[in-house]
């Protein structure tokens, strides 16, 4: 039983689901009673009517169980999805857990379905019905009850025993199966490369060989692993034989009546059935447990610090870094070491230096995505840690190194977070050199972009992101991370003009690689290995 998961289950639906499963399980006893009675002639034909009613009731309860289980599952998944996504929005965007989270929040949580709709009800039934059957058997026929009582524990015991011995081997095989799928995917992905070197046909035989080896290894394992199901099957069916044959012989001697004998025959299998049903659902359910573990592990992680309440003074602010050191968790070296820096209001600063030196970290620091491990960042004299981050970010325009385009319309991508009119959007995209290609799209600004802007080229994506920044004409601070990195020469010069225009009268911090971008700045700061190694006004006539 998963304790964290139990706490978030919708109680009413769960109660209906488990209650219906248990009552339906118990009704099997009534059904057996009635059927044995009619068949033995103890009850008249009229007893078929209540029998039909019991069957109808069982069906109705099964329906209720299925519907309630569906509600439980979808309720839990929605709840966990919501918590995970809001939790993620609170985390710093600099933390990279994204692949895992997307998989988990998307299809990963669906693994909870077999656990909630199949395994949980079967556990409830297995806890109640075998006991009820045993009690009824004790009342009906002591000898049978003892046989069932003695053989019943063999099912969980053998299940666990065989399970334990084969678990490790079976898991290894399932992992090997996943690897096999991985190998196939790898070869298919690399097909163009194989084709280029004339190795494509040869690889088909490799696929066959790898699959053959895997199959013979798997079958060796399964021969042992399936022994568990053989044992369980044998326990259940041999117990029926163990019950039926002595009962028959006692009927012959007249020491037992037919009605009881038939009841015993009908009930005995019902004692084993719930345990076996639970066993067969166990494996699929464990995947659900793994998904739940992952979800709660992510939810249980420490929260980022609360955003402050203060606002920085009006107007274009001065930005001051005082001995700021930034460390990312799990990394030995600091990303920035003891950096002190004053950026005057309206100053245009170019950050240069090799990749990985800490330029983007500096931008993320100003955005409040990362917090200093020591030192502080002051915006207009107020510590960034005390600022209301949402209000502060509304005063920024940011173009990241790899902007994300959302699976909505181009207009919504440019408008992002603001209520810009369509005229403002057009002006912004014209300024970012994006208007021409956007207007040539099939539905212009209303064209819905594919996953991560899949239908645009890298340069076009970059220009949409620039248009986003242009769509915030009131922004006081401009943060650009290599805005022209993926543009060819001609679009670059066009974007440069617009950027120069955008930076007028604002503070601008621009991570730059290209000389033309550096030319925009009043001041050039070189960052090497997390420290400022050069800081000077831009020499007239460009950087040498």
């Amino acid at each position, binding site marked *: 039983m998963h304790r964290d998961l139990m706490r978030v289950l919708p109680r009413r639906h769960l109660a209906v689901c488990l209650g219906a499963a248990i009552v339906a399980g118990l009704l099997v006893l009534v059904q057996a009673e009635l059927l044995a009675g*009619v*068949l*033995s002639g103890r009850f008249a*034909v009229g007893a078929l009517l209540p029998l*039909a009613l019991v069957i*109808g009731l069982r*069906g109705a309860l*099964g*329906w*209720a169980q*299925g*519907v309630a289980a569906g*509600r439980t599952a*979808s309720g839990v*998944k929605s709840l966990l*999805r919501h918590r995970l996504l809001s939790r993620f929005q609170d985390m710093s*965007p600099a933390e990279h857990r*994204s692949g895992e989270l997307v998989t988990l*929040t*998307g299809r990963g949580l669906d693994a909870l379905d077999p656990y909630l709709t199949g395994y949980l009800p079967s556990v409830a039934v297995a806890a109640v019905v075998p006991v009820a059957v045993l009690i009824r058997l004790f009342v009906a026929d002591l000898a049978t009850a003892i046989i069932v009582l003695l053989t019943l524990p063999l099912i969980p015991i053998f299940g666990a025993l065989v399970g334990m011995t084969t678990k490790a081997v079976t898991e290894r095989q399932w992992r090997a199966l996943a690897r096999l799928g*991985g190998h*196939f995917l790898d*070869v*298919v992905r*690399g097909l*163009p*490369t194989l084709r*280029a070197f*004339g190795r494509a046909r040869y690889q088909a035989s490799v*696929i*066959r060989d790898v*699959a053959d080896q*895997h199959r013979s290894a*798997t079958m060796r394992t*399964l021969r042992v692993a*399936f022994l568990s*199901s*053989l044992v369980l*099957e044998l326990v259940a*069916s041999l117990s029926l*034989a163990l019950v039926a044959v002595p*009962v*028959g012989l006692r*009927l*012959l001697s007249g020491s037992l009546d*037919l009605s009881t004998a038939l009841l015993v*025959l009908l009930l005995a299998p019902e004692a084993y059935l719930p345990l076996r049903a639970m066993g067969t659902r166990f494996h699929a359910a464990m995947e659900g447990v793994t998904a739940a573990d992952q979800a709660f592990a992510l939810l249980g992680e420490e929260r980022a610090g609360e955003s402050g309440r203060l606002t920085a003074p009006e107007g274009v602010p001065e930005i001051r870094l005082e001995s700021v050191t930034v460390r990312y968790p799990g990394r030995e070296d600091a990303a920035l070491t003891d950096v002190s820096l004053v950026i005057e209001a309206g100053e245009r600063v170019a950050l240069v230096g090799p990749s990985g030196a800490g330029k983007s970290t500096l931008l993320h620091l100003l*955005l409040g995505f990362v917090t200093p491990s020591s030192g502080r960042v002051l915006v207009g004299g107020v510590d960034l840690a005390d600022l209301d981050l949402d209000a502060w970010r509304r005063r*920024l325009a*940011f173009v990241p190194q790899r902007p*994300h385009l959302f*699976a909505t319309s181009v207009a919504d991508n440019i408008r*992002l977070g603001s209520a810009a009119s369509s005229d403002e959007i057009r002006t912004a995209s014209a300024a970012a050199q994006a208007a021409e290609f956007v207007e040539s799209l099939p539905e212009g600004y209303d064209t819905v972009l594919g*996953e*991560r802007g899949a239908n645009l080229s890298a340069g076009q994506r970059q220009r949409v992101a620039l248009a986003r920044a242009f769509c915030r004409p009131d922004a006081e601070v401009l943060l650009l991370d290599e805005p022209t990195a993926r543009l*060819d*020469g*001609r679009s670059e010069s066009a974007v440069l003009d617009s950027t120069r225009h955008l930076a007028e009268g604002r503070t601008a911090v621009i991570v730059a690689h*290209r*000389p033309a971008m550096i030319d925009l700045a009043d001041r050039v700061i070189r960052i090497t290995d997390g420290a400022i190694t050069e800081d000077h006004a831009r020499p007239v006539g460009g950087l040498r």
Partner: protein
Amino acid sequence: MSGLIPSGLNRRLVVAALAGSAADLAGLGLIASAAWLITRAAEQPPLAALSVAIVGVRAFATSRGVFRYAERLAGHDVALRAQAATRERLYEALIPSGPLSHRGADLLSRMVDDTDAVQDLLVRCLLPAIAALVTGAAAVVIALFLLPAAAFALLAGLVIAGVLLPLGTAAASRRWSARLAPARADLAARVADLVHGSADLAAYGAKGEALAAGMSADDRLAALERGQSRVSATALLTGVLTQGLTVVAIVWICQATGTGSVATAVLALMSLVAFEPVLPLAAAGERLTGVLAALRRLTDLRSLPAAVTEPAVPAATPSGPLTIGVSNLVVRHGQARPALNGVSLTLTPGRRVAIVGPSGAGKSTLLSALMRTVDYESGNITINEVEARDLPSETVRHLMTGLTQDPYVFQASFKDNLRLAGPEASDEELAHAVQAAHLDTWADRTGWDTSLGEDGRTLSGGQLQRLALARAVLYNPPILLLDEPAEALDEQTAAALMADLLDATHGRTTLLITHRLRGLEAVDEILVLEDGQITQRGTHADLTTTDGYYRTLWQSEAMLHT
């Protein structure tokens, strides 16, 4: 559908089906003989009259487990074989087709998942259906001997539960998955946006909106999932009712016709058990929809048109020093305007020609046309006067290949990744290729047997290109084609790579595609490709003194390097 099951599997499939049917028949025999034993014993016949039934009960009880074991082993063996054969045939069908990369990583993984569909079809749909059919038929035949009227009632019940109900669930599931699939995709897109776009959302204060959009996508999906669970629940209800009421009807018929207690009990209990292999078919019907959709997708993939038309009668492979002639080449992707519109060039032995131009101008398309991975619409590509179209595409690639766009790193050791371009190469040849690509320091430090892992994550963009260059050098084609990628690399890495490319190709017949101009004074001719057409050609010295794309780009680069 018959084409889906590879030929060698039929015998194994029959074994699995027989074992499965035998297991279910043993279950049927167990309950029938037990019911007969008990009701007959109640009539207190001599013990000898019961001995056959006693043996029967014990035999059926033992054999059921054994048959089940045999079925599961045979079934899994068939399933694994079917999956392997499906993958192999899918792969073989993909070899001549065009690039799949534009279909996206997710689609590619889904294709791999789809190859499991054949496995599902056999083990979860076909084998259970056969076992259910055999068991149901056996029960009906036995019932016919005991009481024909009861047999018809049983038949009716079994047809409802085993044929009509699965057909119903299959139809319902088809309807629901048509609605569920877009809802799932929508949710996945919203989640991906929220996670991958979290920095953009935070910076622009748009978190709340995006979260609300995600949750409403989740609500829509949850509502559909609840609807789907109502369908499954209704199928379950129908199954339970059909089973129970059939038994009630049979008992009633027996009572009404005055059938004896032995036959009545055998009929009733046997009918109850006959439904056990039949009832799960409703769930199999639901699954069938997904399985069939997956199989359809695979069939579509298999029938993708080949990227190029292979010659019916291949021409003789040209030999000796090779001259490549391209004249008035037109290549079109789909209906759009031509990607290449009348391109001509000549590549004589030992000469190096560079092609520059903005992204999207058609540079990589030219390379693909030369490597025969896309067909040309008009114009000619000749290799020593032999039309490339008249040669098998593999032969053309044997003559000219090299560093292509998006080189792939396999999840294998560095050495194996290199060796695919030269399976017979000696260690010295491998070392030489690595040296030419300036990857020797890295290779010695990291180790030749280091596994390069998923997506070559252990390699940086520059190292990846160098690995691809080393492959090209190792393969040593008569004509070397190099597509230098700029997008993934930072300025310094790209400049260093470019220098090494030029260094490694001295004296080789080479066609070089590049975005960077530094070092191009070393090549014999430079072509400027813009919008599918060659707009300028000449040497570096010619082009830097003429107005145009080349000069503009040169001036912009010069600012960084003067």
